[in-house]
């Protein structure tokens, strides 16, 4: 069975994006995306768990029987998240202070269980890991996009405290876009997350539709010639 890695990548990043297409993982999504930096940190931590759980589950897929697969997947994911949590607390403590509250939320990200069930448990290691990376990056993309929009509208900054997340070299990312901005509280609060997410989902639909229309037009032209 051969795998089309371009298909897997495109699925993870866009066509079947966890947030924009599957609308999964909204609990961590809405909780952390007050700033783009937080979104990026959460996205990368989730990606690590996506990849590790895909690796473990695809390795173990022949041992695990369908009858008990769900509790075992949950167990594997919970152990991985706990290990990520402890590791971050010990070695990237400043980031953990920002994200610490949300790391346990990764367990509640049904998307990870969803990919374990739908992809990793049915495929060999390499495609499963690629799928994990791509799904994770797609999720990161969604978190950063949502975080960036909410941060710009809500506090007038972009990537504030990025240096905390990525080290001092990233300080240049931290920009005050609107000087003396009073802030727009609604966007920072959880309802703002829903509102911005709705606009992003609608935006994705619009792009997809215009792409489809263009492809159809090109196909029609080609047929005409």
């Amino acid at each position, binding site marked *: 069975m051969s795998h089309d890695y371009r298909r897997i990548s495109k699925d993870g990043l866009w066509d079947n994006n966890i947030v924009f297409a599957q609308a999964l993982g909204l609990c961590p999504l809405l909780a952390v995306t007050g700033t783009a930096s937080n979104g990026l940190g959460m996205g990368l931590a989730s990606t690590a768990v996506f990849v590790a759980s895909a690796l473990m589950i695809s390795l173990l897929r022949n041992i695990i029987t369908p009858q008990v697969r769900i509790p075992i997947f949950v167990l594997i994911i919970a152990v991985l998240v706990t*290990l990520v949590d402890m590791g971050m607390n010990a070695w990237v403590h400043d980031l953990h202070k920002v994200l610490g509250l949300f790391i346990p939320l990764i367990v509640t990200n049904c998307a990870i269980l969803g990919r374990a069930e739908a992809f990793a448990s049915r495929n060999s290691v390499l495609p499963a890991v690629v799928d994990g990376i791509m799904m994770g990056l797609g999720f990161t993309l969604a978190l950063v996009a949502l975080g960036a929009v909410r941060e710009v509208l809500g506090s007038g900054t972009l990537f504030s405290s990025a240096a905390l997340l990525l080290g001092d070299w990233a300080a240049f990312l931290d920009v005050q876009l609107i000087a003396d901005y009073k802030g727009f509280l609604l966007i920072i609060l959880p309802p703002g997350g829903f509102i911005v997410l709705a606009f992003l989902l609608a935006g994705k639909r619009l792009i997809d539709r215009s792409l489809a229309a263009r492809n159809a037009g090109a196909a029609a032209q080609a047929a005409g010639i």
Partner: protein
Amino acid sequence: MSTAAPFRERVSYQAMLLGGFSFIATALLVIGNLATRDAIDERRREDLRASLAQVVPAAVHDNDLLANPLSVIDDAGLPLTVYRGTVGLHVTALAWEIVGKGYSGDIRLILGVNTAGEVLGVRVLSHAETPGLGDKIEVARDDWILGFDGLSLRDPPIERWKVDKDGGRFDAFSGATITPRAVVDAVRGGLEFFRRHRTALVNPVVITTPSLSQESAE
């Protein structure tokens, strides 16, 4: 394969599988805990030291604030750790955690006082107040919290230890009265706690000879 399939269908296999995975998961968590415990502990101490340093200026003590903390029972009957800054054997500053009832949950603060009962500093450790309104209690966002420095129960008098809306001395920033009220109440409670237990709290750190303890009693 035909013999493997029925074996995998048996209940005992499923039970072994679940049991085995639970065992491995537990073992991994134990290993993870052992590997990170010391580092996490060290990070916690660094955090605590950093927040203590904000409320107890380095000029008033020459010891490690985390050394020799005092364990006392607070007024609610709960254990409380009081960190002591000393010069020689004499206690010069004290710091402990106080809690205010904020708009959304507890506001944890750390309060530093000198032996005269004057505030050396107050800082927020954690809170869940409304972003943009209640979070002005954070020193990173507003210097409101610095307004406590140097105050005591004598200055202002205790009936003025309230937000201005309640007839007190302290600004209640617009839009969020509950948050500053909670902080003011917590700081006042901390100072009252210190006044009641002053003698016990400022005892010399190590009482080795009778003459020393007599000296402190004088």
